[in-house]
């Protein structure tokens, strides 16, 4: 009886993907517990975040793609307006203008854009799929550049680059010609020195410099990288054991429950643990790309593909940053780091992926 009642509730979830996500969330809970120092309050709040995010995923999986497409343009426009609002009236926290005061609460519109931007691009390509012309790529690029530029200006380079990446994935999967790709890559390469001088803030330049030589500033920006690299390296093959990481538990690791949680994991579970974690991520991405390829609509294929590849990008950038091969950008390790917003965004994304893959019959192409 109950089962029959519940079955339609879960009908749009993908079993293998859900299983893999659950495994990752289990790993997350184990590591977060160690990272927050057995603080049960924070553990409960972590579990609550997971619960909320899973519910959001469940809900998202039920949204029919057509409804999603209807929402796309309004959501994008609202998001863009909010970003404009931030640029004009935003409040400054920690030196960057990211938040918008809404009387009762503050919101960070850039979070909305993480999904809204690829959605908008996928929608655009879907809309134009019968009559796709060269200039459509330019329009698409503009649709992407607007929010990315506004976010970069806040300044929040990490988020803007990751949103740019998600938009790029739509363009790439949407068939952006190789000539343009290579040309753009060359242009970006040529523009890098200029961007370095004119676009990057001092602290952003410093982060890159610190990456190249962390010892140049061991007490300042280099401290994070030095300590996290020590944590990872000293984990060795098998790790120091759960709850036994000295870098973690003696307070040497900064941001250890959020952006640097991978260092905690690495220190306590070693190379074997890292391999296990990489395999879970790879499996999630594999299954995600399978689902994306199986989506009946172009909108679905493009959006799902972009969401999954963005998920990969987050994981890669975070682990690369913690192990000292990428500059420190404020990116959490998706589905592992403590923190509700990221959890919510990522699982909602996977809910959309599942929805786009499972609403076959409802979509008429």
């Amino acid at each position: 009886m109950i089962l029959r009642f519940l079955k339609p509730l879960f009908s749009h979830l993908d079993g293998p993907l859900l299983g893999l996500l659950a495994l990752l969330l289990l790993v997350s809970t184990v590591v977060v517990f160690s990272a927050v120092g057995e603080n049960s309050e924070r553990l409960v709040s972590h579990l609550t975040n997971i619960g909320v995010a899973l519910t959001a995923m469940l809900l998202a999986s039920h949204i029919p793609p057509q409804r999603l497409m209807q929402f796309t343009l309004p959501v994008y426009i609202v998001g863009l307006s909010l970003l404009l609002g931030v640029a004009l009236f935003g409040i400054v926290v920690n030196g960057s203008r990211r938040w918008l005061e809404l009387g009762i609460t503050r919101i960070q519109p850039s979070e909305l854009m993480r999904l809204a931007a690829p959605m908008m691009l996928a929608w655009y390509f879907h809309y134009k799929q019968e009559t796709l012309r060269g200039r459509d790529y330019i329009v698409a690029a503009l649709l992407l550049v607007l929010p990315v530029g506004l976010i970069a200006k806040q300044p929040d380079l990490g988020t803007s680059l990751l949103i740019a990446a998600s938009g790029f994935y739509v363009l790439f999967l949407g068939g952006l010609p190789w000539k343009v790709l290579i040309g753009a890559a060359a242009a970006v390469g040529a523009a890098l020195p200029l961007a370095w001088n004119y676009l990057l803030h001092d602290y952003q330049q410093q982060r890159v410099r610190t990456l190249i030589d962390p010892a140049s500033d061991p007490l300042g920006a280099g401290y994070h990288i030095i300590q996290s690299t020590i944590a990872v390296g000293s984990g060795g093959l098998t790790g120091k054991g759960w709850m036994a990481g000295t870098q973690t538990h003696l307070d040497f690791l900064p941001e250890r429950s959020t952006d640097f949680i991978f260092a905690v994991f690495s220190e306590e579970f070693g190379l074997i643990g890292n391999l296990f974690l990489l395999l879970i991520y790879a499996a999630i991405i594999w299954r995600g790309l399978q689902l994306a390829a199986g989506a009946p609509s172009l909108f679905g294929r493009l959006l799902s593909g972009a969401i999954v590849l963005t998920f990969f990008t987050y994981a890669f950038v975070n682990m690369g940053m913690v192990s000292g091969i990428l500059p420190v950008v404020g990116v959490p390790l998706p589905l592992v780091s403590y923190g509700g917003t990221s959890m919510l965004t990522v699982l909602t994304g996977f809910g959309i992926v599942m929805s786009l893959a499972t609403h076959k019959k409802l979509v008429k192409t």
Partner: protein
Amino acid sequence: MSTLRLINPEQEFQRYRRRMEIAGICAVLLFLGLFSRFVWLQIAQFERFHALAESNRISLVPAAPSRGVIYDRQSTVLAHNFSASTLEITPSKAGKLDDTVNRLAEIVAIETSDRKRFKKLLAESKNFESIPIRNLLTEEEAARFSVNRYRFPGVEIKARQFRQYPLGAGFSHVVGYIGRIGEKDQQRLIDEGLDTNYKGTDHIGKLGIEARYEAWLHGRTGIEKVETDSGGRAVRVLSRTAPIAGHNIYLHLDAKLQQVAEEVFGDYRGALVALDPRNGGVLTLVSKPGFDPNLFVDGIDSATWHELNTSPDRPLVNRALRGVYPPGSTIKPFMGLAGVELGVRTPSYTISDPGYFALSGSSHRYRDWKKDGHGMVDLKRSITISCDTYYYGLAHQMGIERMAGFLSHFGFGRKTGIDLDGELSGLLPTPEWKKRRFKQPWWPGETVVAGIGQGYVLTTPMQLAVATMAIANDGIVYKPQLIRAWRDAATGKMGYAAPQAMERIKLTPAFLRLVKEAMVDVTRPGGTASIAGANTPYLFAGKTGTAQVVGIKQGAKYVESQVSARNRDHALFIAFAPADNPKIVVAVMVENGGHGGSTAAPIARKVIDYWLLGKLPKVLAPAEPEATPAPDEVEDHGPVEEPHSADTAITEVIPQ
């Protein structure tokens, strides 16, 4: 690019699949790159990062050893340690220092001197070191701070060991004191490779026994392996090597005898040295005035320092070792021995003393202290009555070189080698020396005055004591030693300092006996110290001396009452007793004390009476002379320069 193209959905899907495969391969490659980074960090570089993580969490905390205790020969404590609470600030954790100190002052008493010292220490220390703002907290103050502790991050109560000198000023020149390790000390420790053993130690011996036996007193610093968090807080102790306390040191010095000597000295300035002639042990070493060594332990305040350093009484100078004075007539027994041993005189050779001596062809008269002369004087009588004329002639005939050659065996003109730093060597002049020093030839008249211990001849009280020991010991000179024994804290075993014979002077027994008898006669009726020597139950051998501080013009007369107090003659006395079996040798020098017989000899007599008979001088009997100050009464003082930085010595005006 602007051409319209129709897209075949099948073609479109194929392209999408291709692109997705490319993306997938890229993702796999990037993950492989990440994995190889992990392999590099966790396998190839594991040792390095493991070591870094260990050094992150493990810090080695030095555990300072407790400093050895200094005892006298009766095991009376001369220097010891006690624990007390200090209030300390770690500047790196405390925020605004001035504000912190001001708020602390509302809870515990913080004097201006405390603030000054704190500032000075602050300038010398590193930011993460804990610096005392108040020493010797009372229990009440400690309790008051504990209640308010949360208001003061970076401020802590610590238990520290303090050094105390319970007998105070009278022993400052022997025991010395410790003080904070200064830059120079630090450099020396580094040069000697001892700096690691001083991690965790704040103080070092600066003077006296504390300085000389620093290596023994300090002990060996222990090490605690402590796990610390990133804030440097100790989480737990992983292992511990206990510190080994310094050696306890037992001196030959007798605190009671020292106090007797101090007391009988009264308000005079001067020095008294008492040696055990059988082994060279220093029984007493008094230099008056002294100073309270406790003032220096935690830095003396500048006003007190200035007062001590500029006082005309010069309390910081150890007169026994660094005060150089003309020996005056105390040189006569040695001169007399020289005369007979060198064959310049026979014991029976007699002069008729007219009250002066003159060199042939000169009208200059070298006057005897007795205007009309002593009449017929032989060797023995020359000592007993201290006849100057006898020695003028003897010195002239002997010549300055032979005189210096003989006297040097008794230790004149060179350091005695006592186990204290800073000793001066005095002066046994020779023509060579004068040429080197003044580029002038030696005049015969200078030999004449040297014969009665005036002129260029300079000795320290310690040298006089050592030379007297040579007579008392029939020619054997031991190196004067303060240290008698030590207890090794690690093994618990006692070690004993062996007497060190520096010189075995070959002396003819008959001549020696004669000089000794003459010296005994000095303290008998007719001798120059007959009053001081009255009614001794032992044989009391001595020799008086009076050293001129200013030259008296030819034809003028020295009238004590007409000479200002600081230009008055120095009174000297050397002695040993019992003369037939000497157990103590004494040398007394009383600055501006007038006559040796009337001022210096009674002091020596009282010291010897106490040593041989246990007789206390009236002022001291029978109560304890000084109460030991309780820790709470000891004040702490602001920091200043170390004393004895300049090469200070008392040099006298040499008479014309």
